[in-house]
């Protein structure tokens, strides 16, 4: 079982309190009705599956209820760090298979994360 640091509660808690929520930093395309079926399939189904560092979302579901992001090694399962939703992707050496970051002007807004990171 993992010990996970919730960046909102500021505490290490048992994995039982958390729900894994898949890849982090996936932004819903702003023009979702206009994109092609291929683009939609990529956005909706394709996820990183590296053997190494992964950027993923977790939710402290039996604690503060908030979503946050984490960097974890998928071989040792060790958490490198956790950080709050909406904070930029930390610049660690990217794992193989991770898409290169888009130039700033073409980058869609991460609306999902910005609104969902907060339990109100």
């Amino acid at each position, binding site marked *: *079982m*993992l010990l996970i640091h919730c960046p909102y509660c500021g505490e290490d808690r048992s*994995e*039982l309190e958390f*729900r*894994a929520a898949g890849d982090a930093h996936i932004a819903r395309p702003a023009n979702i009705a206009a994109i092609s*079926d*291929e683009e939609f*399939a990529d956005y*909706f*189904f*394709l*996820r990183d*599956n*590296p*053997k190494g560092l*992964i950027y*993923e979302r977790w939710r402290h579901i039996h604690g503060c209820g908030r979503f946050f992001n984490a960097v*974890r090694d*998928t*071989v*040792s*399962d060790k958490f490198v760090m956790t950080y709050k939703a909406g904070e930029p992707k930390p610049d660690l050496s990217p794992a*193989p*298979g991770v898409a290169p970051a888009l130039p700033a002007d073409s980058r869609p807004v991460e609306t999902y994360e910005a609104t969902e990171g907060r339990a109100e």
Partner: protein
Amino acid sequence: MRKYSVFAVAREAMRAHKGWEAQWTSPEPRSQYDVIIIGGGGHGLGAAYYLAKEHGITNVAVIEKGWLGGGNTGRNTTIIRSNYLYEESMDIYEHSLKLWEGLSQELNYNVMYSPRGVMMLSHNIHDSQVFKRHIHANRLYGIDNEWLTPEQAKDYCPPLDISASARYPINGAALQRRGGTARHDAVAWGYARAASDRGVHVIQNCEVKAIRRGPDGAVTGVETTKGFIGAKKIGVSASGHNSMVLAMADVRLPLQSNPLQALVSEPLKPIFPCVVMSNTVHAYISQSDKGELVIGAGTDQFNSYSQTGGLQIITHTLDAICELFPIFRRVKMMRQWGGITDNTPDRSPIQGVTPVPNLFVNCGWGTGGFKATPGSAHLFAHLIARGEPHRLAAGLTLDRFRTGRLIDEAAAAAVAH
């Protein structure tokens, strides 16, 4: 290859068993093959066997980074059944079940296929509705599956607690009598022996590190720990590592790798006659011919290649097993392990062509692909030989994530299956 038979056993008994030969040869790789299969599990070895047997393609190598069957083939709980909900699934799993029925004879190798029946417990009204829907769909499609009352379930599997005061009461069960188990290692070894006999090279302890492609984008071979090996066609069947292998050819597929655990008890006298699965409380159990109770647990909730799995997952499963079968409360567990399963969003496999010419993929069998081994291998060989899928696997292509024609067994079973 010298045939195995009762006469062979008698002959060897007379001469101190000195005449048994190696089951397969271990040649040095050639510089070039017609087909390379990456991954020496049951699916990959089986595909090589059917390429040689049914398509006359014998210049084939299976490249395995560890030992044969050291992946999920040798780590699974060997449940075999074909009572899935959707036609695409029924097609492939039933094709496979039919091949299981004759596999020991076909390979001249005892794979110990044992149709002892797979019983799925229903604990509430939702379960019984879902199982009856499966039963009707299966029977309309010509696949056996029947509904049992709690008393009939207890008759079929006496250790079951069907009392009203049980923590997880049972209101019926679905039974597929032709379902059962097989010996996991024997499947890999039997295919390896039969493939090697037909000229296939089985190359162990050789890891594929890169996939090379020509100017036209088509594959030309693989870089391995034993150097470059050329190939006209490549089939990838590396289960939990499929994403990593496909990334070598810049192919991304909707796969996530998760640890799945199993554990076995100390050996007991025969006590458990069939396979029992409970999706709702998430536990499945059978007894091996050695006498161990074989118990399957769930997957970890996150991506991982750790081949271990969280302790709370097996604890949860053992809680459920002890409630369903109180007589097992004091049985000791002997070993626990994990395997890395590759899971798709709809929990159905992907078998088909990839965007890279002459690169074929067999993946996404996830937590339930052992039962599919002969069928999947048979159809994968067809795909590689002909360049297009067999009719029975036509719905399993990657395209379904674009068209939306998913095979949503995940929703149908709501559990690892």
